[in-house]
């Protein structure tokens, strides 16, 4: 039978350590903490996991507070739980999520598995399963959320998982095995924390902290230098698909959809301009155009689906798109970087045309040439970064001819709108005159138009000016608007119901941008001017910490685009107080409805996020080349500076040596050497007193010079033993005697020592003779 046991040297017993039971307990709590860390940001995923999340957290919390309660659960239950989880996953996948939601079902499965692995009685295999599951979860959430908190999360995750693996390794380094009963029976938090406190070792903690810093630096180095082969954009990585946008910027919106987010001050879009001056006073970040109005809802005409272009790349130029280019747009110089938060919209906020647009990853994009907008296939579930050059801020957009051949209206009613004389002209203008309302509403609109125009025929621009004045005169701006119910009340058919915007116009009540834009739309169409709604953001807040523009959800806006009858759609924003931006002297900026300045604490936090986007998330092969080039340049400068410094120092030393060697020089030199000597002496003398921690590991054997010397000589005797001793048969006994003396000095009690100096001299003499042998 064989067995093994570790016997500690006496000096080791002074340092308390956790025993194996306590290490097992620590293992459990570390695993639990790891699971908490990994689960924490799952709630930010745009998938329905809240129930699973809360359940997992509660279970883990109970297990953390009373870990011994798990002993009361039958073993069979622990065995059955993974099977139950798998069955739940299957049910979720088949009945709820389906193929499209496989990723969601998988995420829910991982949450349950993490919870199970965290609270179960774990062995090495289960510990590793837990770490892998947690890593998987952290990466899925990180990739999909792209939050700045990821770096904190992955850092803490790395630290905890390394502690856990270290602990597992310590526990594995034995042939003993403890059962759950042995580990958890009679567990007491008070005792456990007391033992942790007792065995806490500041030096080990310091070393661990230093290692953690080292690993972070190493990671940063690898991240910066890892070769970027430019192979990206070939594969999607476990992306979770968003089905709806947070902002309400979709192809079909109601009258209050945008308003719902106007109180939300979170940042939806960050824009990094080439310079502060490049941003106009009152920028409009146009996302989508809605050209169809029906019963209080704005949408994109069905027929336009046939005109949209599909693009699958990560870099476009304006020539790739069949947008009409009349050369009228004035492009700005430099690059514009846009960072759009997840879930904002599938449409890209752009103020106008551009020369080129590049996204980080290859994606499927769509362009609607009639609107001059671009969007993705799905609402971005991840942070979206795109870089634009030659960006133009436009308030007039060229009209695009849409012929009957291109157009395949799904709404047959449109066919009746097309006049006989229209022939093969621009069908689209005709469609943007559509007012699907009942006769009473149309009559009312005509009355209002009469009032606005005074019975004259006005150009589109003139009409818009008067219509805006009319609306401002009769309605105020308010985020809470009340539209009176249909007074007739007995309608049975939708077509008979009074239009919501018309009711608002009739009521004279206050409204927000959607009401004003909708009102201008219906009035323009009633006046015979083709009109459509544009949605997006307006203005923004200048972040003075990192010099970029923050566009918040509260900056969401809707306005009109009216056809001017001369081949262009011009912007008409009827919302009151939306005229020219006012110059704010204090902030040196355009204020409300333009660009305001923000240097608050929130802006500072937001700037950290931009730093994360700029430096980390957007880091690519170009950035890497720039970085390496900068490092090379700085290194060259440093090298040059150092060489110059040495050269100057050498010249100065040469001059000094060549100088006259008089008495004062000798005196100065002597004093300098003396001071240096004193300093060295003081440092050596004070070293042990001023920095007592230096002596921490030199207690016991290492501080005793006799023991140390005896140990050294013993080692040398061992090294020179063997063959050399055999060559000196006469001295074998002497060597044995010397070894015995040295062993007595090395291991014996100090009080039994007798003339160690003599023993050392004798040992050296023997060693000398052995060397010569």
């Amino acid at each position, binding site marked *: 039978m064989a067995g*093994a046991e570790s016997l500690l040297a006496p000096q*080791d017993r002074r340092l308390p350590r956790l025993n194996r039971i306590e290490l097992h307990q620590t293992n459990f709590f570390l695993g639990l903490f790891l699971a908490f860390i990994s689960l924490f940001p799952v709630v930010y995923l745009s998938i329905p996991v809240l129930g699973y999340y809360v359940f997992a957290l509660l279970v883990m919390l109970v297990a953390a507070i009373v870990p011994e309660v798990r002993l009361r659960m039958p073993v069979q239950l622990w065995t059955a739980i993974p099977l139950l989880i798998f069955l739940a996953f299957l049910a979720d996948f088949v009945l709820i999520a389906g193929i499209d939601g496989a990723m969601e079902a998988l995420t829910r499965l991982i949450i349950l598995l993490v919870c199970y692995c965290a609270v179960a009685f774990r062995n090495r295999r289960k510990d590793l399963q837990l770490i892998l599951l947690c890593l998987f979860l952290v990466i899925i959430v990180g990739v999909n959320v792209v939050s700045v908190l990821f770096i904190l999360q992955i850092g803490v995750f790395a630290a905890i998982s390394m502690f856990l693996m270290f602990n597992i390794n*310590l526990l594995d380094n034995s042939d003993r095995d403890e059962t759950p009963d042995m580990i958890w029976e009679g567990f007491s938090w008070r005792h456990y924390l007391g033992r942790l406190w007792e065995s806490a070792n500041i030096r080990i903690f310091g070393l661990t902290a230093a290692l953690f810093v080292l690993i972070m630096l*190493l990671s940063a180095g690898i991240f910066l230098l890892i070769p970027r082969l430019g192979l990206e954009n070939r594969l999607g990585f476990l992306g979770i698909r968003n089905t709806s946008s947070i902002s309400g910027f979709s192809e079909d919106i109601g009258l209050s959809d945008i308003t719902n987010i106007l109180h939300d001050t979170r940042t939806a879009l960050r824009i990094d301009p080439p310079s502060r001056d490049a941003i106009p006073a009152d920028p409009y970040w146009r996302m989508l155009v809605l050209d169809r109005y029906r019963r209080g809802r704005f949408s994109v005409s069905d027929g336009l689906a046939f005109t949209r272009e599909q693009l699958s790349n990560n870099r476009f130029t304006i020539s790739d798109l069949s947008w009409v280019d009349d050369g009228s747009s004035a492009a700005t110089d430099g690059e514009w970087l846009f960072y759009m938060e997840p879930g904002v919209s599938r449409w890209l906020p752009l103020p106008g045309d551009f020369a080129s647009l590049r996204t980080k*990853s290859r994606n499927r994009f769509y362009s609607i040439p009639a609107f001059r907008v671009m969007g993705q296939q799905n609402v971005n579930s991840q942070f979206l970064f795109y870089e634009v050059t030659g960006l133009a801020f436009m308030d007039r957009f060229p009209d695009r001819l849409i012929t009957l051949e291109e157009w395949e209206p799904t709404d047959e009613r449109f066919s009746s709108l097309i006049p006989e004389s229209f022939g093969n002209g621009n069908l689209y203008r005709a469609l943007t005159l559509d007012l699907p309302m009942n006769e009473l509403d149309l009559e009312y609109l005509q009355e209002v138009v009469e009032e606005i125009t005074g019975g004259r025929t006005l150009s589109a621009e003139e009409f818009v000016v008067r219509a805006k004045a009319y609306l401002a005169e009769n309605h105020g701006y308010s985020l809470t608007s009340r539209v009176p119910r249909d007074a007739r009340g007995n309608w049975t058919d939708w077509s008979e119901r009074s239009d919501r915007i018309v009711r608002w116009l009739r009521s004279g009540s206050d409204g927000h941008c959607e009401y004003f834009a909708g009102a201008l739309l219906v009035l323009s169409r009633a006046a015979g001017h083709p009109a459509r709604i544009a949605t997006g953001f307006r203005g923004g807040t200048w972040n003075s910490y990192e010099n970029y523009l923050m566009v918040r959800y509260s900056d969401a806006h809707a306005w009109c685009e009216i056809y001017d009858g001369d081949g262009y759609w011009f912007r008409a924003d009827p919302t009151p107080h939306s005229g020219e931006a006012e110059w704010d002297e204090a902030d040196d900026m355009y204020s409300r409805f333009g660009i305001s300045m923000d240097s608050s604490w929130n802006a500072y936090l937001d700037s950290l996020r931009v730093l994360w986007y700029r430096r980390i998330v957007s880091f690519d092969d170009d950035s890497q080349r720039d970085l390496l080039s900068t490092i090379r340049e700085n290194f060259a400068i440093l090298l040059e500076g150092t060489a110059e410094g040495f050269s100057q120092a050498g010249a100065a030393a040469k001059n000094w040596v060549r100088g006259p060697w008089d008495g004062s020089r000798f005196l100065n030199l002597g004093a300098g050497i003396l001071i240096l000597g004193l300093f060295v002496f003081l440092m050596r003398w004070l070293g042990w007193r001023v920095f007592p921690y230096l002596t921490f590991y030199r207690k016991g054997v*290492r501080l005793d010079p006799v023991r140390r010397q005896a140990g050294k000589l013993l080692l040398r005797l061992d090294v020179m033993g063997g063959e050399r001793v055999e060559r000196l048969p006469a001295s074998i006994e002497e060597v044995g005697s010397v070894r015995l003396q040295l062993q007595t000095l090395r291991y014996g009690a100090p009080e039994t020592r007798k003339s160690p100096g003599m023993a050392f001299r004798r040992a050296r003499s023997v060693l000398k003779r052995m060397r010569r042998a």
Partner: protein
Amino acid sequence: MADRTSSISAWRGPGAPAPGRQRLIARVLALIIPPRGQSFLPTATGYVLIVTTVGICIAAYSTGSNILFISVSLILSGLLLSGALSWVNFSRVCWRIQAEPPFREGEKGAVLIDLRNGKKIIPTYSLWFRISARKSRQPGRVFLEHRLDPGSSAVLEWIFEPAGRGVETITLSSGISEYPFGFLRKSVGRAVSHQVVVWPRRIGYEMQASGQAEQFSLLGDSSRRIGQGDDLINLRDYRRGDSQRLIHWKASAKAQRLQVRQFAAENLSTYFFFLQTSQRIWRDTEQFERMCRFAMTLAEDFYQWNRILGAAINDLPVIHIKRYVDIAYFFDQLAMIEMTPTDQIPATPLESNIVTFEPYGRSGVIACAAGQKIATA
């Protein structure tokens, strides 16, 4: 007499004392080209991590996602750090075997592994060794379960049960560690073998009947051994060779000459053990083994009774047994004897009171003194 002090093997491991200071270039080269006996292989956990890293790496390159690149960087730095820490963990650590005799066939014995951490700041963790007794075919593992603080040492103990007498080779593998995270298994240092002598096991035997025993007790000469028995029987004149400790100073003063205390042991009869291993006598191996065990048991008992004077095996030099090391040396010889093809007679004549061993029946062995049977096994 052979040197019986070499129960400690040479030091092994990176911290083992080297004859000369290793050159810097050699130390750097050792980091690149692993020295003999050193290996560095991923564990199952390590392979899982490598596969995971490759997976994340492919995803990172495919998507260009810096989140994935960060994860890859972190895992790679963890692997690098793991390698570096593993190297540091072994640095200046050395070990050796201490096999403390006696080892007896069929009885548990302890092999100690002396472990030292010569580092000044960093502790050493999670070392383990494979250890085996070749002849007994007993493999085992010994673990350093606790932290080995810098500048300190620990002793690991391995208990094993030798299967047979003779020379047993204890082999300690290179030091192995999966420190710090269990990704990589590093083996450092060459294996060290150490030979230990395993004495025959004790067996039961039967002394002769009381009448014969009395006769047997009269057969021996009076012991010339200095009295070490428990019973003080007399005072006598000092003789050359007597221990000064035995001098009775008060009696010496009265008698005007040196008087020493005489104990009962001085008058006991003593014997000389002589073993012959000729195949002429011992034809059966099992019986021969039994003789070895019987001789050892009897000699040990006689030593405890202070009734053994010396021993000899074949023509080997006679061992005069005065101290424990002498009897131990006899047991060492007894552990290693083999049957010889011919009779071998000692060069010098043996003293009287010789105890010899002869086969008895098919498997038994008897011990005889002056032609008379004194014990049977």
